[in-house]
C-alpha cells in the first residue's frame, strides 16, 4: 500500500467542516451530481398561509390536483433513483409533509438508502408521538416555519387559530427528543418588528435560525403572496438591527457568480413528479411518470440550459454595482418575473439595503467604505 492509500490515513475528518462540505459541493458541481434534493410529498396542508407558493389557499386544493399526486410506490422508487444518482441530502416537504400518511415509511426507506433525511414542516402537527416515530426512523432534522413572535401575528398569517401554540409545542417536542431544529422565518411586513424576539425564541430553545425576506408568486400563477413582503424601511431596520451580525460580507470579486446550485447540485421534485432545477425554481424539466430521473437529469433541455449559463447571461446583474451584496435566487426571480436570468425589483432593493448597511458599518469602524 502506498502512503496515499493507507486506510489508516484514509479518513479526512473535519467535524462541522464548512471547508470539507464546500469541497463536496464543488465535486458534485463538477460531476453534475444532485447532492441535495427536495421531494414535495403532497400539496395538502393544515394551514393556509397567505404567502404560500403552492397555490392560493383561500380556495381548497382541487380534487384533480390531489388525484394527480405521486403514489407511495412512486415515491419509494424516486428515492431509490435519487440514491442511484448520488444524492445524499434529502428533504421531504409539501404542502405539509406531516400530512402524508406514509411519511414515516418514506423516512425509513430513505434511511435504508443511506440518505441524510430532513423534514420541512410548519410543526403544528408535530406531536410527541410523531416526533418519537420520526426519531426512531432516524430523521436528521426539522426545518420548522415560524411567522410571528406571538399567536396573533402568526395565526393571522397562517389563517388558522391556535397554529402558533401548536408550532411552538412541535418545536418543544422535537428539541426534547434531541432532533436538531432550524426555525425558518420569513420576514414579512406583519412581523418585521418581531424578528429579534423570534430569533431569541428559537435560540433559547436550542434551535438554529434562518431568516429570509424573499417571497414568491405561486405555482398557480397568482401573486397576492407578494403583497406581504417587507417594506424597505422595515428591511433597513432588520439589517441594521437583529440581523446585523448575520449579514454575509459583500464579495467584491468581479467574477462573483449570481447562480446557485440549481440543476447542478440541487433539484426539486413536485407532488406530481415534475423535476425542477430546485424546489424554489418551478421550471418543469421532465416528469418522472414518463422518464427516469437519470434521463431527465442528464438530458433535460431546461436543466442543461441552466448549466450552460455564464455570468454574462445575467445581463442586468453583470455590471450591477450591488452584486457584491446581492442574495439573488434565480428561483425567486423566475417565480416572480418568469425570467430565470433577469433581475427582480425586491431582490435589487434587498441588495441595496445590505450594501448600505455594510458601508455604514465599515465607515463607522474604519472610515473606509469598502
Amino acid at each position, binding site marked *: *500500500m502506498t502512503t*496515499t*492509500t*493507507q*486506510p*489508516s*490515513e*484514509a*479518513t*479526512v*475528518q*473535519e*467535524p*462541522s*467542516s464548512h471547508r*470539507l*462540505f464546500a*469541497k*463536496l459541493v464543488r*465535486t*458534485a458541481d463538477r*460531476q453534475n*451530481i444532485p*447532492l441535495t434534493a427536495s421531494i414535495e410529498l403532497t400539496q395538502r396542508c393544515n394551514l393556509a398561509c397567505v404567502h404560500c407558493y403552492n397555490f392560493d389557499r383561500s380556495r381548497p386544493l382541487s380534487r384533480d390536483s390531489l388525484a394527480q399526486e405521486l403514489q407511495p410506490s412512486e415515491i419509494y422508487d424516486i428515492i431509490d433513483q435519487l*440514491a442511484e444518482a*448520488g*444524492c*445524499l441530502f434529502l428533504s421531504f416537504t409539501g404542502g405539509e409533509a406531516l400530512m402524508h400518511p406514509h411519511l414515516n415509511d418514506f423516512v425509513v426507506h430513505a*434511511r435504508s438508502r*443511506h*440518505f*441524510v*433525511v430532513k423534514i420541512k414542516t410548519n410543526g403544528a402537527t408535530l406531536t410527541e408521538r410523531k416526533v418519537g416515530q420520526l426519531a426512531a426512523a*432516524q430523521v*436528521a*432534522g426539522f426545518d420548522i416555519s415560524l411567522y410571528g413572535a406571538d399567536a396573533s401575528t402568526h395565526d393571522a398569517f397562517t389563517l388558522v387559530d391556535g397554529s402558533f401554540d401548536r408550532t411552538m409545542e412541535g418545536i418543544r417536542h422535537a428539541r426534547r427528543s434531541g432532533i*436538531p431544529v432550524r426555525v425558518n422565518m420569513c420576514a414579512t411586513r406583519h412581523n418585521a418588528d418581531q424578528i429579534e424576539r423570534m430569533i431569541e425564541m428559537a435560540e433559547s430553545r436550542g434551535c438554529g435560525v434562518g431568516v429570509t425576506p424573499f417571497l414568491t408568486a405561486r405555482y398557480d400563477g397568482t401573486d397576492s403572496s407578494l403583497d406581504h413582503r417587507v417594506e424597505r424601511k422595515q428591511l433597513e431596520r432588520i439589517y441594521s438591527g437583529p440581523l446585523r451580525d448575520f449579514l454575509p460580507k459583500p464579495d467584491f470579486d468581479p467574477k462573483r457568480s449570481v447562480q446557485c446550485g440549481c440543476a447542478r447540485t440541487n433539484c426539486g421534485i413536485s407532488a406530481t413528479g415534475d423535476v425542477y432545477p430546485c424546489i424554489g425554481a418551478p421550471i418543469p424539466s421532465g416528469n418522472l411518470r414518463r422518464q427516469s430521473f437519470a434521463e431527465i437529469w442528464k438530458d433535460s433541455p431546461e436543466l442543461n440550459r441552466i448549466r450552460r449559463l455564464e455570468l454574462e447571461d445575467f445581463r442586468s446583474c453583470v455590471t450591477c454595482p450591488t452584486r457584491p451584496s446581492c442574495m439573488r435566487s434565480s428561483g425567486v426571480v423566475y417565480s416572480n418575473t418568469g425570467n430565470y436570468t433577469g433581475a427582480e425589483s425586491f431582490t435589487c432593493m434587498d441588495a441595496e439595503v445590505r450594501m448600505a448597511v455594510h458601508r455604514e458599518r465599515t465607515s463607522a469602524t474604519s472610515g473606509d467604505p469598502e
Partner: protein
Amino acid sequence: MTDAKIRHSEEVAFRVIDGSAVLVTSNEAALYWLNPVATRIWELADGSRRATEISDAICEEFEVDGERALSDVNDMIAAFVEKQLLTQNA
C-alpha cells in the same frame, strides 16, 4: 475484533461520490471523506464480513501485503468503531 462481523452504524448516512465515500453522522456534526482504499473497506463492511475477510479482499484488489493490510484494516475499524461509524456483530 477479528471474529466479529463489521457493519455500518445505523446512524451514519453515506454515499460514494466520485469514487470516494462521504460519511455524515446523523446529527450532521461530522463529515468524513474517505480515500479509495478506505472507501472499499467501507463498502466491504456491510455486515457480512469479518475484519480478516475484509483484509483478504483488500489484499487481492489492491495487491498489498497481507499483514500490513490486516493491520491497516484493524486500525480503521477501531477508529471508526470509536467514532460510532462502524459496529461489530459477534
